[in-house]
Structures are given as C-alpha cells and as structure tokens.
C-alpha cells in the first residue's frame, strides 16, 4: 500500500518537474539572441576602451602609485 502511494506521489512530482522544465525551456527559447561575431566585437571594444584605465594591464607610473614602497614597510 505504502509502496503504491509513494510511486503515485513520485509520478505527480515527475509531472510537475517535467512541466516546469518545459515551461522554463519555452521561456528560454523565446529570448532574442545576437550573433557571436557582434557579441565578440562588443567585448573587444569594451576591453580596448577601458584598457588604459586598467592598472593591472598597464602598470602605474611610480609617482602615482600610492602603494609603491617608499620606505621599508611593516605589517603591524
């Protein structure tokens, strides 16, 4: 009896889960997409526009670097 009941519940759980998956996929199928070439071009453009502001990429002149060692540093 118990076994029958649990298999019934599993079946309806499966249906709910499957239905949710289908609904989710429907939502995803409808979104608008652009071509990879356009997306890549945009990524590249962002990089080149912001490259000069990226210290890890460009380095900073020692005079402007507030963290440059001026004297022996200590850890308190």
């Amino acid at each position, binding site marked *: 009896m118990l076994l029958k009941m649990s298999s019934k519940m599993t*079946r309806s759980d*499966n*249906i709910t889960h*499957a*239905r949710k*998956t*289908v609904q*989710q*996929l*429907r*939502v*995803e*199928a*409808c*979104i608008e*997409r*652009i*071509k*990879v*070439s*356009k*997306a*890549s*071009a*945009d*990524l*590249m453009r*962002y*990089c*080149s*526009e*912001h*490259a000069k*502001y*990226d*210290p*890890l*990429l460009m*380095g*900073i002149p020692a005079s402007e*670097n*507030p*963290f440059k*060692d*001026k*004297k022996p*540093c*200590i*850890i*308190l």
Partner: protein
Amino acid sequence: MCDQTFVAITFGPCDSCSQNKPLMNIYLQNEPVNYCSLCVELMACQGLAKGETVSTLRAESENLKAKLEEERAKLHDVELHQVAEKVETLGQFVIKTRRTLKGHGNKVLCMDWCRDKRRMVSSSQVIMRSAAVCVLQEHAVTMPCTWVMACAYAPSGCVIACGGLDNKCSVYPLSLDKNENLAAKKKSVAMHTNYLSACSFTNSDMQLLTSSGDGTCALWDVESGQLLQSFHGHSADVLSLDLAPSETGNTFVSGGCDKKANVWDMRSGQNIQSFETHESDINSVKYYPSGDAFATGSDDATCRLYDLRADREVAIYSKESIIFGASSVDFSLSGRLLFAGYNDYNINVWDVLKGTRVAILFGHENRVSTVRVSPDGTAFCSGSWDNTLDFNPV
C-alpha cells in the same frame, strides 16, 4: 484562447519560435499573430492536463532543448579568439607578491574588498590597507562564525555579512574600536536549510543576496530578515553568485554543482538564461565588467566565458597541463585579464579575448580558494588553504 482561426499559406518567421516555416494566421486575445503549426499545437496543448504524461512532457522538453541548440548554433558564426586575432598581444605580465599575510588561524575560504579600496575582509579577519603609511594593518577583529564560507562587505563599508556551515548569513556592524566584541552585535538575516556558499549585498546595505547548498538563492531584507524573493532552478548545491555590475541592473548569475550557470531576474525570481557546458561543478562565477558576459571556474579544470546576448559559451580557458579545478575567478578592470585560482596551488592569468594564458603565479602552498581584484583595479588578493592571503599590488 483562439478567437478565430484562419488557415492562410504564408511563409516566414514564426512569431513564437522564430523559425521560417509555413505560418497560420491566428488571433490571440484579439491580436493577429503568425504561428507555425507546431507552435499552434503546442499552445493548444498548454492547458491540457489529461493525456499529459511524463513521457510527452519529456519529449517536448527534448524537442525544446534541441530547438534551443539549433537557435544558438545558427548565430555561432565565429569564435571569439578568431575575432580577437587583430587585437594586440599582451606584453609579459609581471607581478610580485608584495605582502603575504600569515597568521590566519584557518584556511582562508573567502574574501571581499570594501568599495573604499582600502579594506578587505577575509573569512577570519578584517584587514586594513592604508595608503598613507604603506602598511597593512589587521584589525584584531575575528569573525565570530565557526566555518565561514562566504563573506561580503556592504557598499557603505560599515557592515559585513558572513556565514557558512551554520546555514545562516549574519550581518555585523564594523567599528574601529579593536576591543569591540563583534559577536554581540550579530544579526541573523538569512536562513537556509543547508550551508551558505556565497553572499553579496546588492547596491545598498539594505538587501542581501545569498546562495546555499540547499540548491536555492535568496534575496533578503537586512533590517527585518524577511525573505523577499527566492530563486529555484538549480538541481544541486549552488556554490557561487555574482551581481550584474550595472547600477540599474536587476540580474545576477549563479553557478552550482549541477554544472549549470543560471542568470536570474531579481525582481521576479525568474530564471532568464541557463548555460550547461561545464563537465563538473561550477565553483565560481563572475560578471565581465560590461555586464554582457560572465566567466566561470569549474572542477573540470576549465574556465569559460559565456556571452549573455549571444546566449552561448564563447571561450574556454584551458590547457592540457592544467588538471586541477579552478576555485575562483575574477576580471581585471578592463576585462582583458581573467585571474583564476586553482586547486594546484597556482593562479593562472588568462587573456580573455585571445584565450591564451598570460602568466602563472606561484606562491601558495595549498589550494587557492579565492581571488579578488580590488575595486580600483590596482591590486588583487588571493586567499588559500595554506592560511595566507597574498596581496599583489601593481
């Protein structure tokens, strides 16, 4: 649902699935639409409860998945690294570890930068980085949590959130008084049914986003502790999350043990996009600075870049020699560099556009658990299971 149905032979893109097919002109709620016959059938079956079995739903979902792949593949006209061939190659990347902070009693599991670019919080302590005196001061403030897997600074810098195996995310106000007992001011905000894997404040101190081993993410009101929105869709532990960078952005991305990275709308709780190309757990997700893409680090030893508008993976960062999982990723300010910490104790720096490795950074004696670039991009910090934090300024 359908007021009138006219059968007319027109050929073109379906209003529902966008495929070029013979169309039927129908009226939905008094609006004329052109649907292909498949979509008309799907729509008619939507309300059907009888006759809907697991197998028909499964068949439909397989159908939709195949259609999704088809749609994505249509737009896959070129690879990112091919487009990036004309970009200048990066010079040699040189960085020396300036400061190793030892003395953490435990493994460093997580860390976060404060927006003032001076302070960091890690899973055991608050660390102050002071420019005037070129000194790294450690606040003698120990995180009063047992096993902190997630920590975050509030935008104001006055409050810290952290949590872990206690299944909660708690918020602590900070004070400069070193003798202050932080634990006394603790306020529990988030409650999950499994460990807390990541947390982040939204654009204000008032809302907290959390992800958990219970497979969900949740948005909480800090003041009242109320659950504002929950996000269901992962089928296993969620390990990481990141908020979209825009000021007005209302989306975030999460990655988990189900190998999926999901993009969510914070207001509706809806899962907008989902990406499943990794072959193992996704340990870390991070948005590209423009917000149009995000990177992931996974136990399958690769990091990948997914573009949101192209709705697909556009780059893989991997090498045959790298066989250990990537635990944490972060971008440099321009998005050109991707810093990734691995379980083989190293940090690999990748050229995001070209897909090549620019540098390997050694220095840790155990797994690298977290890598974070400072908000002004002048330094990055890596935490490891060897109980140290390496601070690397430019």
